């Protein structure tokens, strides 16, 4: 008991975050086993996991590093398509199973990280609005590159072309990525369990990074760039670290996402998707990892649960977003919530004090 009480505040907070994810996973597994969940919700599980990973990784850039990135879906698509190629390539070697998915996710992370470095090197020298504009452009560029990318696999290995499927010069084999059509016939390897493990991994990386020396340097740069520079922190380096880690995690989430659908097109990863992920982060609270997770899950489920109201569902969705923004920023509502919290805590303290008295009393009697 004492040990738990003596844990640092961040450790406790992190434990709660892990706990929420694990409990949510176990509860869902239980409900699925009991056949108490609808088809729609089961179908949503893997996308929710992917979006949660996206929200956590973007939170690293937006919340912790304090930069505005508007092209996060770009990294997701790099991961999705490199993961797809990896799956097709390794399927024949290790079989289409969890190991194949693992390899694909790792490769997706590596490719997205490389993209992150390429973008980050010039971009991390910019600040503020410029970074937002460049990441926005990056998302669009990636989308257009993928629209022109043709990848095929035959006995001679992989073929790449930026012109057309014919230009691949394939001898039999299979075309994996076909320009604007994207990829079809993807083996559906993603599962809820894989998504859950990826969330834990993403959380582990991000939370440990935040609480490390590097993380504190990143936050120091966010809070006051000049002060951070004056104590010898390499500003570009630390911003780049946050950006690349975030890109790699987004790429992994992209691979998980892509492997859940049998067809995926580059169009999916457009500006709207980037903004959707940013909305998760902003509504969950910038820098608040737990909030981002909850926001991503709720906002993915909400439009589906509103299907029964037909044409009005996107309207309600928008109203919910606005209400949440008003409520979380309203000082009065926050003071009410704060008071409830305070009262709850005081009652808890009273109980603890009583318990302590009782123990003391018991000791005296002996």
């Amino acid at each position, binding site marked *: 008991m004492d040990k738990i009480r003596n844990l640092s505040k961040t450790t406790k907070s992190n434990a709660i975050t892990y706990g929420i994810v694990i409990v949510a996973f176990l509860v869902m597994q239980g409900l699925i086993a009991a056949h108490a969940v609808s088809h*729609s919700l089961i179908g949503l599980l893997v996308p929710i996991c992917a979006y949660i990973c996206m929200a956590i990784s973007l939170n690293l850039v937006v919340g912790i590093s304090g930069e505005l990135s508007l092209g996060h879906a770009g990294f997701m698509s790099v991961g999705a398509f490199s993961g797809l190629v990896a799956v097709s390539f390794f399927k024949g070697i290790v079989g289409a199973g969890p190991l194949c998915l693992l390899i694909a996710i790792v490769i997706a992370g590596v490719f997205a990280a490389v993209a992150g470095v390429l973008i980050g090197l010039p971009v991390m020298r910019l600040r503020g609005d410029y970074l937002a504009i460049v990441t926005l452009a990056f998302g669009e560029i990636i989308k257009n590159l993928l629209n022109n990318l043709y990848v095929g696999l035959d006995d001679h290995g992989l073929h790449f072309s930026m012109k057309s499927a014919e230009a691949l010069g394939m001898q039999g084999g299979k075309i994996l990525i076909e320009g604007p059509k994207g990829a079809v016939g993807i083996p559906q390897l993603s599962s809820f369990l894989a998504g859950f493990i990826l969330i834990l991994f993403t959380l582990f990386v991000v939370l440990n990074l935040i609480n490390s020396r590097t993380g504190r340097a990143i936050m120091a740069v966010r809070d006051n760039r000049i002060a951070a520079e004056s104590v010898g922190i390499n500003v570009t380096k630390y911003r780049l670290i946050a950006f690349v880690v975030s890109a790699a995690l987004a790429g992994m989430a992209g691979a998980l996402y892509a492997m859940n*659908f*049998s067809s995926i097109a*580059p169009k999916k990863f457009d500006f709207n998707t980037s903004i959707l992920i940013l909305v998760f982060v902003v509504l969950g609270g910038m820098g608040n990892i737990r909030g981002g997770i909850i926001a991503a899950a709720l906002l993915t489920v909400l439009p589906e649960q509103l299907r*029964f109201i037909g044409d*009005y569902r996107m309207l*309600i969705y928008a109203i919910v977003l606005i209400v949440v923004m008003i409520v979380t920023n309203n000082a*009065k509502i926050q003071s009410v919530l704060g008071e409830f919290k305070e009262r709850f805590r005081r009652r808890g303290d009273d109980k603890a004090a009583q318990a302590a008295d009782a123990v003391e009393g018991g000791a005296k009697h002996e």
Partner: protein
Amino acid sequence: MSLEHISRRGFIKLTGVAAAGLGLSACGGSGSGSSSGSSAAGAIKIGGIGPITGATAIYGNATKFGAQVAVDKVNDSEGKTVFELNWQDDEGDAEKAVNAYNNLMDWGMQILVGTTTTTPCVAVADKTANDRIFQLTPSASSTDVTAGKDNVFQMCFTDPNQGEKSAEYIAKKKLGSKIAIIYNNSDAYSTGIYNGFSKAAPGLGLEIVSTQMFTDDSATDFSVQLNDAKSKGADLVFLPIYYTPASLILQQAKSMGFAPKFVGCDGMDGILTVEGFDTSLAEGLVLLTPFVASADDAETKGFVEAYKKLTGTSEDPNQFAADAYDCVLAIYAALKDSSVNASSSNADICAELLKTFGSGSYVYSGLTGKDMTWGSNGEVSKDPKGVVITNGKYESLD
């Protein structure tokens, strides 16, 4: 007391927001009877998926209303509720389409008419193949939709097929010999037709002198593409694209004094309804489409009338609506004399429909073609109709 911190005005504001939210959700519930109504007893549940919102909403809405017209027609003629239609929005997105599909599965869907667009259709077709649900898509035209699945059939041409047929038609009717192509390389439909066309054209004595492309993001200025076609001396410009960019191409060609013959595909259908478009620009435009709303036969007339009544507009239905209409009626014709009914499982209905559609000898005549048949790969076989626009109206070329 903590509530004292909220002023009276603040409290009223909050209740107002809450009440507005509740009110909206309530009126939404009553206003969507047609799309997600309560189950009628003894009706076969047909699910529909297509974009009702987003960039491709025009096609999704057309298929939704087209299918609804057919369902109403069947129910009226039988004097009871044979079919019940539940149409769900997918925003033209694979993820949302799978969500919509799962939602329909919760509802108890037995047959699927959809999806309207290609990428979502491939994702959904995988699910229906697993769950044994018969799927007939009105307009998802890629070959990937049907490849490897025995339960998925198409009402429209496949893209490469349409490209080939267009080339054949141009060669047969001698519409032109030096051909320029402008296509959208960020669009699977457009790229698919282009690939089919460019493969077939050389063998038919057609010379492709200029191939130019654009993307969804650059679909506003076509001077580069048109100048290239003009300087290479093209006498025919083939436009395997949707009508919105096509209307701009026609405008810009006119303003630069370039007047070749323009030929489009079924995506061109609807160009006369573009708001603010000078229809005289489309004069002489040839398009290959399976359906012409101005046709004289009784079935087309009846469909156009019912469609306008249902949508409450004066707009003619396009070929997407007609395809969806044909989908429902083709399913009805195949099921009419069978033993399956509303209490049959989706797998039984699927097996029954596969017996007819998959037999190769099932013949259906509808709005979008006479004597259509389906191959075992799920692709439809029918002839395209060539029409030319004269005096702002479609006129048959055949």
